[in-house]
């Protein structure tokens, strides 16, 4: 009786003891691995920004497993369960829920579900990443040396191109292989987005492997370079070429033209192009009066997005414009 009460009170322990031995060992192993990642991140051996939250999440999500109540279990599994069936789960996120009613239910239960549903599933996170990249990135080098920049980018893409046929050869279908191959060149959110689009079933393993890979690469990178490149080649000093000055007007012209051409060519990725170019325009180098007002910038972008030809060509719009002019 007392042990039942104990297990009822401490559900993480209850699910751990009731799990199959393999699952129990895996959960304990992942908790320890999470703690190790936090330690390595704190020591600076691995990328701390990535590894500390990931390790913490890994330890927490494997510790915080409980037996879900019947309604939640039914919503998460999306199947009709028999009475008395115990379904272990967490209150973090349920990435595989698809049906609208179940999704609405899970949104009120799992604390990370709103972020997952409203940021990852619709690609908003990709736009936010592009906004961040746009603010940090100086396109001056690309404008000064476009061919060299493109060749570097092409070599950067090789990871994906090589991985794709290898993954397919190992037995994955084309969608799964493409999702796995994206780890080879893209950043985390891009990998997650591709996985959601092409291979939903592999979303969780790809997420874990991608972030582990990204984190571990930082740690292993110096050793990998030493292993692959001989010391005499590493000792060669790069030739410092004369810097070509690029004015802020040229950068602005590039942002506008690049955004328009990219949207024209790749309409499916159109939201990410203005995210990138808009942030480029808001860089401190461009002395634009509205650059300090992020809200103003977002409102301007929203209103301009509403000015699509389909909406703008209606006769009522011209009446409104005439009224405004008067």
């Amino acid at each position: 009786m007392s042990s039942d009460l104990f297990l009822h009170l401490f559900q993480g322990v209850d699910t751990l003891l009731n799990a199959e031995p393999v699952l129990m060992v895996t959960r304990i192993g992942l908790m320890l691995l999470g703690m190790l990642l936090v330690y390595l991140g704190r020591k600076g051996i691995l990328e701390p920004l990535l590894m500390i939250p990931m390790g913490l999440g890994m330890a927490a999500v494997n510790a915080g497993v409980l037996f879900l109540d019947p309604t939640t279990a039914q919503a998460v599994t999306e199947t009709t369960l028999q009475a008395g069936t115990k379904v272990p789960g967490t209150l973090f996120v349920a990435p595989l829920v698809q049906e609208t009613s179940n999704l609405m239910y899970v949104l009120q239960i799992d604390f990370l579900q709103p972020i997952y549903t409203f940021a990852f599933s619709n690609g908003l996170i990709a736009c936010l990443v592009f906004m961040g990249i746009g603010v940090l990135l100086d396109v001056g080098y690309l404008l000064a040396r476009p061919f060299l920049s493109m060749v570097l980018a092409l070599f950067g893409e090789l990871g994906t191109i090589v991985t794709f046929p290898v993954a397919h050869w190992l037995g994955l279908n084309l969608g799964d292989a493409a999702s796995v191959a994206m780890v080879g060149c893209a950043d985390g959110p891009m990998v997650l987005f591709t996985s959601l689009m092409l291979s939903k079933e592999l979303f969780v393993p790809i997420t874990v492997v991608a972030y582990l890979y990204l984190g571990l690469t930082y740690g292993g990178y110096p050793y990998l370079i030493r292993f692959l490149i001989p010391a005499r080649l590493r000792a060669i000093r790069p030739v410092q070429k004369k810097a070509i000055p690029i004015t802020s007007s040229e950068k602005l012209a590039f942002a506008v033209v690049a955004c328009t051409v990219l949207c024209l060519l790749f309409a499916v990725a159109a939201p990410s192009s203005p995210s990138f170019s808009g942030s480029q325009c808001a860089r401190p180098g461009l002395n634009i009066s509205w650059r300090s007002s992020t809200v103003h910038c977002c409102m301007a972008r929203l209103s301009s997005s509403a000015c699509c030809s389909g909406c703008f060509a209606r006769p009522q719009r011209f009446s409104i414009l005439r009224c405004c002019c008067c």
Partner: protein
Amino acid sequence: MKESALQIALFVYGMTAVISMAVALLIRILYVVVRAMGRRKGQR
């Protein structure tokens, strides 16, 4: 005809390379045009 994964990868990479070089050329042309416009404005 069903393409193999290797063919798809090579096609995608080839297209990426061509588009990248075209974009690089476009950037170079745009850069020259914008710079020339800036010089002409400066001469006035």
